[in-house]
């Protein structure tokens, strides 16, 4: 095997190492933010670090999926817990930007999924949404035939036309100019497809039919 082929593994282990450091950085930012909450630069720092951290986490998971080293940790969870966890992850940021995040979900709605992965995927999307929305983001969930549908809507300008038609599963068709949005969507679509029950497989849909007038993202889990 040539040195070239070691590169993915080397990259993965380095990403892993960087992530460990970032964990400490993030926790310290959090602490400083608790003391001096009004510093805008600090919020920017926290926001960017979160983004780096999330992207790295997603890269690692995708690497493991690619090399068959990944498995979902499926259990039955409350959907409301998931939406609240996602909201909690992004709360400080949304608060500072005066964005209102609302949640609408029955308390007894349950879903079989990998809690950690679904939360992280949705949190990234919320993180992206706050850049494009005006002032509102809405998270909701309901039963949709044999699937649980988790919906994220905003009141921004919606997805650009060229994004609405891309195949999220196929990396060759992806427009990488969209940067982290592209990675985030590819990640969540990969995670969705790994969720299976019998003949059913999870999937995602994006369109501009948001109740709030902007973009709508839907994650369907069997």
């Amino acid at each position, binding site marked *: 095997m040539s040195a070239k082929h070691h590169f993915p593994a080397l990259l993965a282990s380095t990403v892993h190492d960087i*992530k460990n450091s970032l964990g*400490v950085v*993030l*926790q310290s930012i959090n602490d400083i933010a608790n003391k001096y909450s009004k510093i805008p630069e600090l919020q920017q720092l926290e926001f960017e670090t979160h983004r780096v951290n999330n992207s790295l986490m997603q890269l690692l998971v995708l690497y493991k999926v690619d090399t068959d080293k990944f*498995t979902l940790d499926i259990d*039955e969870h*409350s959907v409301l817990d998931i939406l*609240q*966890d996602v909201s909690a992850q992004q*709360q400080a940021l949304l608060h500072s930007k005066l964005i209102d995040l609302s949640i609408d979900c029955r308390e007894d709605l349950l879903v079989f999924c990998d809690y950690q992965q679904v939360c992280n995927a949705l949190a990234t999307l919320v993180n992206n949404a706050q850049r494009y929305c005006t002032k509102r983001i809405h998270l909701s969930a309901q039963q949709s035939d044999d699937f649980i549908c988790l919906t994220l809507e905003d009141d921004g300008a919606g997805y650009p036309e060229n994004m609405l038609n891309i195949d999220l599963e196929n990396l060759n068709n992806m427009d990488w100019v969209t940067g982290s949005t592209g990675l985030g969507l590819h990640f969540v679509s990969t995670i969705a497809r790994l969720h299976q029950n019998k003949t059913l497989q999870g999937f995602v849909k994006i369109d501009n039919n948001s109740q709030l007038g902007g973009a709508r993202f839907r994650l369907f889990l069997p």
Partner: protein
Amino acid sequence: MDLKLSDKKILLVEDHPFMRKSIRDMLYTLDAQFIVEADNATRALKAIRNKTFDIILADYNLGNGKNGLQLLEEARYYGFLPFHSIFIIISSEQTPQMVLGAMDAKPDEYLTKPFNAQQLLIRLKRNFYIKNSLQPIEKEINRNNIARAIDYCEQLLKKNDPKLHIRLLKKRAELALMINDLEKAESIYQQVLEYRELPWAWLGLGIVAFQSGQHERAINIFNDIIIKTPLLIECYDWLSKVYLKTGQLDKAQETIAQAVELSPSSILRQKLLAKTAYRNNNLEHAEMAYKNTVQLSKFSVYKSSGDYSGLAKVLTESKKPENALQIIQHMRQEYPRDREAELREAIMASEIYQRMDETDKAKQSLNKALSLHQSSSDFPEDLQIDLARSCFLHKKNTLADAILSSLIANHIDDEDLLTEIRVMENRIGLKNHSEQLIKKAKKELIEINNRGVALFEQGKIQEAQSLFESAFNKTPKNKTILLNLIKISLQQLKDNPEDSEQFKKTHQLLSIARKQGIDEGKLAALQMEFSADSITSR
């Protein structure tokens, strides 16, 4: 459900002072008032031993020494953790290797850094809800009252709480397996699978097939699961069990090796691999697995001098006696003033020196081993087999036979141990040496058993009891006899529930049985059959 942390006792285990402070401050924002902190696993374990905590938050990485999962493993092993305690592992990443490493210890939650107070609270709430709900069942399991545990489980199932339903079904099936009610277990697993293809339900079906002796079917089920979910490590454990049971040693070794590759840090799997590879005459793999075991178990509760002598034995047979000598010297440093290790050293030394043609030293070592062995009757069985082996190698067959005949009489109903003896004899060119002895012991056991059961069925309970009692005194480790004695005692107790003497005796026997590793399920089933208040809830 509202959760107040103000009345919860919390243990925070984190080696990084900075992170510790940060998490502690987070807990304070959730109104926590009682927080104990520890910066390593040893201190944490001391705290857990002395106090009951409602919540334990432990970082996976705790610097030198044990990690967070090993802390959990050890706390469980010693029974320091009550069911209601919530154990959360904090890590910077949820790596499958870490998750898979745990064979006997699964935390209630993995929490990935960074996290905030709200996220922690959501996890705590959900675990408190589940634990509070299942607490009555677990309490009865702990008391070994399976009948009542089943009863509670059924009651809860009737309440139709969607948040608990699947969990309760899983528990109900596990309870059925405990008392060998395979039909019930199978029907639950089928019911779950119709609803959702959950790996644990597939696994359950395989276990049912295995327990009911359908080995082919079990193998097929387990292999199917591995194809579908190759990272479900328990499946490899079960598959290797079937292969071992059906004598397919090559396949067993291969399966265990796959599991080890997935979770290289699991000590118990490395140990099993070492033993199986040795049995399979695969010395190279055995050496590697033993070395990994010794290395990994340095800070673990599963550390054992037997692994050192196992490694020394493999090295001796691989014609590396010098290395073997180093290993047993190393063992003595790790276990100063430990009689078992001292005996293991003497046994192995007698063999190593013999291989090095140092006859005097070899003889001295064997004599030392024999006199140490005299000092107690409580040495592990594998050690006694090793001693018999050394005796054979020194042409002291009478001594060897004496050790073996006592072992065989006591363990004639333990096929695994008989196999160990046969493997040992094969390896030193004494194939079938003990077969006569085994045949005779088997015949004797069957005779006593038949006579006792006949007396019991004729209603001559007293006579049956004294027959089994005298057999028990002769071979106190024989499980068949012990189980029969327990059965009779339970019957006596059922007939005379006020007899406090009988009550004491029965419970003594039960605790002896547990100490000897008799299957909890068998004991539970017996207790159920003879329970005075006979709860029937099947």
